[in-house]
């Protein structure tokens, strides 16, 4: 189907590489559980009884999250090492906390716009979602 210049051998190589990869997927257990991925796949109309494809999706999602997390980590480290004055505190010893700020910066590179509200103008007595009311 592809009129590629690679010819038949390349195709075979690619096929075998893919087959190998898919079989290797069965050995690798992704962090994201299969059941969760299957649940969301079924929700969107994805139909496939093959477990390898489910694993593929799980691995792809994990790769994405890992990339985002590593980018955020770099941002966090950059922020910690940036301050000029080192006399009062040692920022290197401080714990690396994933904050909304770093996360939004990392996600922006991946095409996700995440904006977090700095503060809320409403009174704290009102019923609000506490997860968005915490920090930052």
């Amino acid at each position, binding site marked *: 189907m*592809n*009129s590629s210049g*690679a010819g038949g051998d390349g195709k075979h190589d*690619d*096929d075998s*590489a*893919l087959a190998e*990869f*898919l079989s290797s*997927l069965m050995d690798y257990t992704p*962090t*994201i*559980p*299969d*059941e*969760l991925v299957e*649940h*969301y*796949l079924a*929700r*969107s*109309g*994805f*139909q*496939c*009884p093959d477990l*390898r*494809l489910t694993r*593929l*999706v799980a*691995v*792809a*999602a*994990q*790769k*994405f*999250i*890992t990339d*985002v*997390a590593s980018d*955020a*980590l770099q941002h*966090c480290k950059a922020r910690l090492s940036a301050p000029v004055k080192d006399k009062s505190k040692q920022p290197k010893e401080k*714990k*690396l*906390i*994933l*904050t*909304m700020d*770093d*996360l939004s910066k990392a*996600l922006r590179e*991946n*095409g996700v716009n*995440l904006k*977090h509200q700095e503060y809320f103008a409403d009174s704290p007595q009102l019923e609000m979602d506490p*997860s968005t009311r*915490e*920090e*930052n």
Partner: protein
Amino acid sequence: MNDGGKESGQDNQNNNSTKKSSLPSPSSGGADDFSRSIAKIAVSQVCESAGFHGSRHSALDSLADILIQYIHDLSKASHFYANLSGRTACNVFDIIQGLKDLEAPRGFPGASDIHQCAVGSGVIKEITRFVDTYEENPFARPVPSFPIARQPKPITSFAQVGEATAGKHIPDWLPVFPDQHTYIHTPVWKERTSDPKADKIEQVRQRRKAEGSLLGLQQRLACNGAAMSAPAVDYIGKGKQVVGSNPFLAPPLPPGEKQVSEVVVPDEPAEGKRVSILETFAPAIEAAKQGSFIPNVSLKNRVLPSKRPTVHFKFGVDKNSIAMQVSSVAAGAKRDTWFLRDDEKDDKKRRAEMILKESMEKPDGLAQL
């Protein structure tokens, strides 16, 4: 390594659950909570392996949300590509194409290469590299397969229960009829066996008994009145007096021994009448108290002696007060007729009417009631 002291690799589930219990869960997505919390745990594990010591709640929430959204978008895209090729079941190529769509903003090597087989694309290469480099970090807890499909309870059919159908036209594989108690309303109270004849007999017997006792009382009074003297004590106002000794308990005097003083005579008519009225009402009052009504009071009148007793009785006070009550009832019965129930109203009305009739019959215009 701890995630900000809140989670550890093995205690993710516990801490997540405690976090969930301490924070009220958002109102939206009640059925989604389970999968969302699992996603949160997975994301926290990934962050931990990336090198973070801790994380904010909101950041974790957002990242879990993004993960779910990513899976959703990828599956939607691959499903779209499968449909485009005229299939409903997705292929590995569909997934690869979906991945390319998602990675497009970021860019991946080989994106501009149109003549390359999809298998050799940069996306797969990156994923392969990812799998090879990153060490395995499986999910911390076993996850049950969800959502759990609930088996609907099958409705029992006639054949299953063994019941005979209501008619030949009803096949026995149809569901059974509901129980009779679900649609038939049966009275709950215990039906009292009311025997009107026995009730009437009992009522008449009670009345007769009351009449008989009153009769005896009247006779005794008459005897005492004839034998005994005038009031031994002075009376104040409306017959309020204190009798030193009970005249009923004193032995009967022979006739003519004691002289009845004539001082009281001028007041006698009034007193006598009043007493007579009171005495007239006495049986009605007693009957009302006992619950049986004596319609004919004329019987009493006949029994009354010609010589009116001049002794004032102690229970005149009570009589008076009762008479006042009765009069108030009589007066109020007309007012409150519509508040009373029918039987009560009739009873009180009857009583009031009888009392008024008696008072009218008597030739006295005493409205002292």
